[in-house]
């Protein structure tokens, strides 16, 4: 591994941006858990970051092509806990998305996402046709929609949505035919209409709230309203670290996890927002740039899939803070408190770096 760094094969731009985000994330978790019963979470988060960095280095050390070869068993293994959860899982806050072991809880959906990205890359490594064949398209939909559906049934709409970018990556970069796009668009409209009937009440409420945020100020609309107030009141430079009134006086809901970006916006203002958005842009855009370096289609698709997932989560989460998107309950990668999210995101970064590090045929 020393060799990897010495020969400048590890992309330091991406790595530094990720480390900077981790540092900022730790600061924000510390601020948002100040003085409450969550005070010990900062330490836990630091520990998870350590685990995540170890995973990242591990992914960097292993040749991704080996992982691609075993991608189907990995994928299958990652689905097992999802099935287990649906059958036997405990509900935490309405949903069965956590596996407990010891004193820890883990969200297997995050792992399944990385495994799906691997399987996607493996599919396109071997799918060399100029246009996406219907058989390959079928495989693509199956591999993404199976975990997506399992998560949706937990039911965790937000996490389920985070599988969608993988589908889009496959369809777009795999060059799906135009008529399929049209067909899919039509199917989507029908699905939305039918799906509305099957949504849980609280999920419907979130969407209604998104459309009419002032209908229910004390209930579901409360979260969006409070996070908008937090963000907006931050102004240009913010209220100062640990001085966000919305956050410290607990007007902001789940502020150390899903709403951590609002804490940033309130305490560090628009300048803080710009810095963090720039760091995320660096990670995403650098990821796209690295995809062009990949030595093979599998590597390129692996990087594209993982980068797209990251991009999608960042956009959805930051947009949710100011009411651009409905509240779906997805964490902000690298910043939000949560071991599964941080560890798997860092593992994804490790995979991206691994593809980049092996861009030369002789490596």
């Amino acid at each position, binding site marked *: 591994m020393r060799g990897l760094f010495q020969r400048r094969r590890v992309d330091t731009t991406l790595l530094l941006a990720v480390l900077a985000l981790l540092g900022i994330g730790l600061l924000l978790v510390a601020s948002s858990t100040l003085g409450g019963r969550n005070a010990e979470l900062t330490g836990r988060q630091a520990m998870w970051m350590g685990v995540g960095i170890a995973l990242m280095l591990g992914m960097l050390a292993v040749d991704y092509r080996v992982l691609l070869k075993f991608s189907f068993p990995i994928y299958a293994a990652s689905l097992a806990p999802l099935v287990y959860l649906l059958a036997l899982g405990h509900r935490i806050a309405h949903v069965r998305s956590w596996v407990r072991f010891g004193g820890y809880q883990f969200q297997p959906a995050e792992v399944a996402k990385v495994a799906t990205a691997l399987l996607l890359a493996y599919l396109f490594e071997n799918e*060399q046709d*100029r246009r996406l064949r219907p058989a390959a398209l079928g495989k693509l939909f199956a591999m993404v929609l199976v975990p997506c559906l399992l998560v949706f049934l937990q039911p965790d709409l937000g996490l389920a949505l985070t599988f969608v970018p993988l589908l889009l990556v496959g369809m*777009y*970069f795999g060059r799906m035919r135009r008529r399929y796009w049209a067909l899919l668009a039509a199917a989507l409209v029908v699905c939305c209409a039918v799906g509305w009937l099957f949504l849980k009440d609280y999920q419907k409420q979130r969407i209604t709230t998104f459309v009419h945020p002032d209908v229910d100020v*004390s209930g579901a609309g409360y979260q969006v309203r*409070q996070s*908008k*107030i*937090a*963000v*907006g*009141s*931050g*102004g*240009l430079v913010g209220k100062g670290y640990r001085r966000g*009134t*919305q956050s410290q*006086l*607990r*007007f902001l809901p789940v502020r150390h996890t899903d709403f951590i970006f609002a804490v940033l*916006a*309130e305490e560090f*203002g*628009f300048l803080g*927002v*710009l810095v963090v*958005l*720039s760091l*995320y*842009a660096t990670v*995403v*855009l650098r990821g*796209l*740039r690295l*995809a*062009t*370096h*990949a*030595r*093979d*289609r599998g590597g*390129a698709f692996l990087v*594209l899939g993982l980068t797209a997932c990251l*991009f999608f989560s960042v*956009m959805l989460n*930051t*947009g949710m803070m*100011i009411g*651009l998107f409905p509240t779906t309950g997805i964490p902000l990668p690298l910043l939000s408190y949560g071991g599964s999210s941080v560890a798997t995101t860092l593992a994804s970064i490790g995979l991206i770096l691994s593809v980049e590090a092996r861009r030369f*045929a002789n490596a």
Partner: protein
Amino acid sequence: MRLRGSSSEERESFQRMIEVAFIAAAFAFAAMATAYWYTQIVRGDYYFKLSENNRLRSVAVTAARGVIYDRHGVPLAENEPSYTLYLYRRETKNLAASIDTAVSLLGLPREDVERRVARYRTYFDFVPIALAENLTIGEVAAIEARGAEDPEFAVGVGQRRLYTKGTGAQAIGYLSEASPNQIAAQPDRYRPGVAIGQRGIESAYQDLLAGRDGERRIIVDSFGHETAEESREDPVPGRNLTLTIDERLQEVAERYFQNRVGSAVAMDPKTGQILAMISAPSYDPNLFSRRMTGTQWATLVDNPFRPLQNRAIQNVYSPGSAFKVFLAVEGLAGGYITPDTKVFCPGYATFYGRAFKCHKKEGHGWVNLREAIRGSCDVYFYTLGKRMGIEKIAEAARAFGFGKPTGLDLPNEKAGLVPSEEWSEKVRKAHWYPSETISVAIGQGPLLVTSLQLARGLAGLVNGGRFPRPHLFLSAQDAQTGGRFEYFDGTEERMKIDPAIVGQVEDAMWAVVNEPGGTAYLSRLPGLDLCGKTGSVQVVAQKDTKKEGSLPFEKRDHAWFIGFAPRRDPKIVIAVFVEHGQHGASAAAPLARDLAATYLGVPIPHPAEPGEPPAGAPAPTTIAAARAAASLPAPARNAAPITEARR
């Protein structure tokens, strides 16, 4: 870029696709940054205000209400801490169980508690619900002891009014929650739930007593819990009020009026300062600042004798023979009589073809003015009244202030009525009968006055024509600065009376109490030098007055006594009215004597006794009795509250 097995053309096309994605992603980040710029920079001030509204709460700090003292500094109305039970729904695991606990702990009516909780259904659950006010110390202890098991209950400390003596309840008034109308009238002063002065002094001097509430701006968390205080504006306490009232006199009168109905007013004739003002039956003003039950309220409102009414200024009655002294002054001044004019009283007289009786059946014989006043000879005053005619009588009555409010500093004072021919045409739509003039001459008929008007008229008489305005306000003190301001009134009414005439009438009034044959001779007290005039008002026409003692309560005559003491340089004038008291001499004069003696420091060997509960049981009048009887049913409704004198 090496993509194994793909042509360079395909490689280039793949690269272009990634470039499109690159530009799209960059654009998305820029768009997101713009959205944040809009929220934080363009709309920043708006959201900052909202966040300030979120964290800051304004809490009113109630100003301590001014204490009310009597003229010697005896506190009449003070403040004491009061405790309120609050329910925090957010801490409640099971609302029904919490209600059960409150009901069993304090013995509250369940419907009452449920109604209060239901009223807050639409509020945020961090808004505390006031379940019960005015907890006892024992109840507070019981709640505090259960703090660990029932964290949803909290006790809040406030202030409530304590009427230490409870005497003169109608004159002092009471505090209770501002009504919606009162809030609507002064929305910037009163908010819902605030206790303000109702009736009496508490109402008349509300602004002075209330002070100005302060405000605390506190920082709260999303649960509404206070985390810090940002700023505070201290309340300005209300001014302490010293009244002209002499509590010693109040207690004498209050005791006397036990089981009686009526009113008493004592006044300093020189200044118009009210020394005593009692109305019976009375009530406990403390009931209003405590948990008043529906039964207690019903008892007050349904009582036919209207305990809430201040009879000294709000009930009007015929003055009876007490009016004779005022008529005598005008009779002498107008030359209708001289002190030596004599009239023969055979026990009745005939005017306009109708016989008018004197109260003394066997007649007074030949009487001059002094003897006529001393013995209260009706025939003498029938004669005088006939000579004067109704217009001259009305003029005399108005000159002494009857027929208009005295201007006392309490709300809702009645004007009374001075009848005249014009009044009869306009209001009654009937001709004035000359025979009515004969009745008015002895204070019967449509002539109606309040106790206070009689006291004020008498004060003007003994002052030789100077009528100071009656008042209860003596001075107000600012508790913080020690600043003090005193009562001042430059608008004193005057009328011209020959001092000789005043002396003649005063002499006759002295004889009423201090000479054998005087109607109030039994109430004389050595060293007191009490002067006065008795009166009685017939309630229903009596064919045979001998049976009076056995009459039902509500048909008995009313009793008046007006008086002053001492004879030279009077210090106190008094008007006592006892409803259905039968004789002024026996029912009203003894209290006047005790009031004057108490005020002037003359020992009273045999103080007047409180009333016996009569068959027609009027409402209790003392505080102790009112408290005890609050749960008892009200007296029968058929007892008439106000009765008209016979015409």
